[in-house]
C-alpha cells in the first residue's frame, strides 16, 4: 500500500523539479487541447513563443503585460501571508485607477512632475482605502474578509461603469456598451523607457515593489508580525501586538499595491479610464500569488511568465487563426498544472506494507 504524507519543508531541488514537471505537463495537456480543436500545436506554441519573447517588441510587450500582474500578485501574497484571505485586489485595481483619475481631474493642467506623483499617490491611496474598509469590517464587526472584499469588488466595478456610461466621467457620446473617459492630458502619461512598446514607469515600480516586499517579509518587524499573524494570531495578540491595527496595515498595504496596478494601466497603457482594460487583473493576482507560494520574488517570476503568456496569446490569435479563447484555455491549464506542482512538492509518497496477518 502506498500512503500520501505531507512534506512541510521540501528541498529547493524538489520544488524546482515539481514546477518544471508541472509546466511540461501543462504544455502537454495544452497541446492535446489545441490538437483536439483542429489546430497544429507546434504552430500555436511557436506563435506564442514568438509573441512572448520572439523580438524586442514582443519582450517589451510581455513586460508591460506582466506589470499589473506582478503588483496584484504581491498584493495577494502580502495579505495571504498574514492569513487574511482578501480577494479584493480586483476592486482595489479599479479603486486605484479611479482615485488616480481623480487626481488628474483635480489638477489637469499641472506639469508632469507634479501630476504623475500625485496620481500615483492617489491611486495607491484609493486601493489602500478599499482594503482598509474590509479590514475595519473584519476587526470591528467580525465580517469575513472573503465576503466583504468580493462584495466591495462588485460595488466598485459597477460604480466605475456608472460613472463612465451615464455619470460625470464618460466621454461625450459614451454609451452603456462603450464606456470610456476622455483621454488623459499628455502630462499625466507615465514616462516610457522605450517609445515603441511603451515600457512605462509602472514596470520599474513593480520591480521595486517585488524587492521591497521581499525585504519587508524577510527582514522587518512588520514582516515578522505579518508571518506571526498568519501562523498564530492568538499568540501574537497575547504578546501585546495590536492585531486589529496590524490587520488594517496589511490590508491597506495590499490594497495600495493593487491600486498602483490600476493607475499604472490607466496612465501607462490606455491613457484614459476604461473598465474593460482593468478587468480580471486582480483575480489573476490571486492566482499568481498562490502559484508563487506567497513569496514576493516568486510573484515576480510568475508575473513575468504569465505576462509573456498573455502577450504571446495575443500574437497567436493574430498569426495563426486559432481563436483567442484557446489562448485563455491554455493559460487556465497552465495555472492548474503549476498549482498541482506546488501541491505535489509538498507531499510525498511512502510505501507501507499491507496487513499480512
Amino acid at each position, binding site marked *: 500500500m502506498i500512503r500520501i504524507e505531507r512534506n512541510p519543508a521540501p528541498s529547493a531541488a524538489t520544488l524546482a523539479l515539481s514546477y518544471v514537471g508541472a509546466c511540461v505537463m501543462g504544455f502537454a495537456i495544452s497541446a492535446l487541447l489545441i490538437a483536439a480543436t483542429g489546430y497544429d500545436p507546434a504552430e500555436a506554441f511557436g506563435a506564442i513563443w514568438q509573441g512572448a519573447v520572439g523580438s524586442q517588441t514582443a519582450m517589451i510587450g510581455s513586460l508591460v503585460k506582466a506589470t499589473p500582474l506582478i503588483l496584484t500578485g504581491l498584493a495577494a501574497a502580502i495579505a495571504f501571508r498574514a492569513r487574511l484571505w482578501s480577494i479584493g485586489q480586483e476592486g482595489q485595481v479599479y479603486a486605484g485607477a479611479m482615485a488616480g483619475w481623480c487626481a488628474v481631474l483635480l489638477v489637469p493642467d499641472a506639469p508632469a512632475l507634479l501630476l504623475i506623483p500625485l496620481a500615483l499617490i492617489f491611486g495607491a491611496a484609493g486601493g489602500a482605502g478599499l482594503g482598509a474598509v474590509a479590514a475595519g469590517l473584519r476587526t470591528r464587526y467580525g465580517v469575513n474578509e472573503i465576503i466583504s472584499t468580493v462584495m466591495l469588488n462588485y460595488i466598485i466595478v459597477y460604480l466605475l461603469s456608472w460613472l463612465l456610461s451615464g455619470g460625470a466621467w464618460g466621454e461625450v457620446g459614451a454609451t452603456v456598451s462603450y464606456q470610456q473617459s476622455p483621454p488623459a492630458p499628455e502630462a499625466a502619461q507615465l514616462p516610457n523607457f522605450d517609445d515603441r512598446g511603451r515600457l512605462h514607469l509602472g514596470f520599474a515600480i513593480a520591480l521595486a515593489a517585488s524587492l521591497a516586499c521581499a525585504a519587508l517579509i524577510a527582514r*522587518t518587524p512588520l514582516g515578522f508580525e505579518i508571518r506571526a499573524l498568519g*501562523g*498564530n494570531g492568538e499568540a*501574537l495578540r*497575547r*504578546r*501585546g501586538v495590536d492585531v486589529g491595527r496590524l490587520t488594517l496595515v496589511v490590508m491597506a498595504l495590499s490594497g495600495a499595491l493593487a491600486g498602483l496596478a490600476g493607475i499604472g494601466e490607466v496612465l501607462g497603457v490606455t491613457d484614459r479610464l476604461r473598465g474593460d482594460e482593468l478587468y480580471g487583473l486582480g483575480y489573476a493576482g490571486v492566482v499568481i500569488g498562490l502559484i508563487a507560494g506567497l513569496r514576493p520574488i516568486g510573484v515576480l517570476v510568475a508575473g513575468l511568465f504569465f505576462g509573456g503568456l498573455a502577450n504571446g496569446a495575443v500574437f497567436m490569435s493574430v498569426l495563426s487563426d486559432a481563436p483567442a479563447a484557446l489562448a485563455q484555455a491554455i493559460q487556465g491549464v497552465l495555472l492548474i498544472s503549476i498549482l498541482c506542482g506546488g501541491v505535489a512538492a509538498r507531499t510525498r509518497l511512502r510505501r507501507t506494507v499491507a496487513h499480512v496477518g
Partner: protein
Amino acid sequence: MTGALMEARGLTRRFGSVTALDGVDFDLKPGEIHCLFGENGAGKSTLASILAGVIAPDDGALAVGGGPRRYGSPADAIADGVGMVHQHFALVEAFTVLENLMVGLPGRGWRPDRAGLAVRARALAEDLGIALDPAARVSTLSVGERQWIEILKSLMEAGRILILDEPTAVLTPEESRRLFAMLDGLKRRGLGIVLVSHKLVEVMQSDRVTVLRRGRKVATLATADTDPGTLTRMMIGASPPPEGTQAPRAAGAVVVETRALTSAESAGGVPARDVSLTIRAGEIVGVAGVAGNGQAALFDMLAGALAPASGEIVIDGARVSPVSPTEMMRRGVRCIPEDRFRQGLVGEMSISENLMLGRHRAAPFRRGPFVDYGAADRVAANVIDAFRIATTGPQARAASLSGGNAQKVLLAREMAPGGRVLLANQPTRGLDVGVVATVHAALRAKRDEGAAVLLASEELDDLLALCDRILVMFRGRVMAAMSARDADVERIGALMAGRQPEAAA
C-alpha cells in the same frame, strides 16, 4: 516468551532526522497493567501508537497472540482486539454517547443496529460501574465522562488489549481513582493494559514498567521490585535537580489587585465571578481548583486577553484601562498560557522567532529598521543550552517540539527581564518530573527577583511546595483563601469539589 498477548522486537521509528524509537522490545501478558514511563519525547507515545497500528514502524517485528503482525491502520489493530484511548479525545461533540460509540464500529453496513448497541453499551457500562446515559450529547459531558466514552468505545471495538495514552492528564483526582479501579476490574478479566504515563503515582499502581529514555528502552521491571526514586533516576538518567528551599521572606508591596473582577457569561467556558485578590512583590499566590472552574477567564483577564464584564484590575496602584494584552505587556505582565500551542507559540515559526515574539521591536532584536535574526538565533542558542531543550537548533520549528520542550521555550520568553508579574495557568500539565522541576525553579527564581507570581494548578503538591498563599476556585468563585503554611489538603479538596467544610472557621 510464550503466553504473551503482544510481543514486539526491535521496534524503530524515525521522523526525519530524529529517531523517536530505537530498537525497543516490549511484551504484554494477559491480566497485567504494563506502564510505559519516560520523559516527554522519550518515545512512549510513539511506541503506543505503533502497538495500536496508528503509525507503522520503520523496523522491527510485532506479534499479537503469537502471530506476526504488520498493521496498516488502527482498523487492523482493532480487528485483532487492540484498542487505544488517545490523549486527545476524538469524539464528535454534537453526537450522543451512543452515536459516538457507533462511529467506526466495523461490519455494521449502512444501517447500524442502534438498539442492540445501546443494550450492549449499557451492559458494559454497568459492568464497569460507570454511570453513562447513552442518549446524552457529548458536548454536555465533563472531560472525565468523555474519557469513559473513549474507554467504552475501545472495549467494544477491541476487547483484548487496551492502550491508554496519559489517561489521567485531564481527570480530577477522584476520577483518576475511579479509572484505576476500573482498570483493575478489566485486568482481572484477563485484558492486557498498556498505560502511558509520566506520573509516578500511577506507575506504582502497575504490574510492570518499561522505562524509556530518548527513544531507547532503559529497562523493564516488576513494579513491586522497584521504587519511585529508582524509576526517576532511570527516566532522566541522573538524580533529579533538588527542590529549592522555601526561606521565609518579607512580602513586598501589592503589585496586582483585582476588585470584584467578573467576566461575561457569554465568553465561553466557566466565567470568573466576583474575584478580588492581591498579589505582592516577591510572593507566589496559588489558585487551587479543578481546571475549568473559571481559572482560564481569570488569567485571561489579567493577561488582557479577555475584557472584564465588570470589576477592575489595579497594577501598581493604577487602574488598568483599557484591559488589553498590549496594555498588560506594557505594565510588565507576562503570561505562560494554559494552551501552549494555541495561545503561546507560533508553530510554523522557529524557536528563535518564538522567543522574540512580542519583543521583536526592541533591543537586542532590532538593528536599524530591520529585525536582527542573527541576534535572535544567539539568544535562542543560549536558551536551548540553559534550559536543556531537546531540539536540532534555534531554527527548529516550534511545532516540532514535545510538550515539555515547548513549555521551556515559553518559560524562557516570559521570564525574560522586564516582567514584574508572572501568570502561569496549569504550567506543569502533561509534563514529566524533569520539566516540572524546571518550571518550579523558574517560578521561584522570578519570585526571588521580586516579581508577583500567580500560579493555578490542579496538582496540590505543586501549590503546597511553591506558594505563599492559596486560593481555591470553584465554579468561577474564590471559595477561600489561606496561607500555604496552614493549608490542609483535606479542606482544599473539599473546597475544590464545592463543599464548604463546616468546621472551617
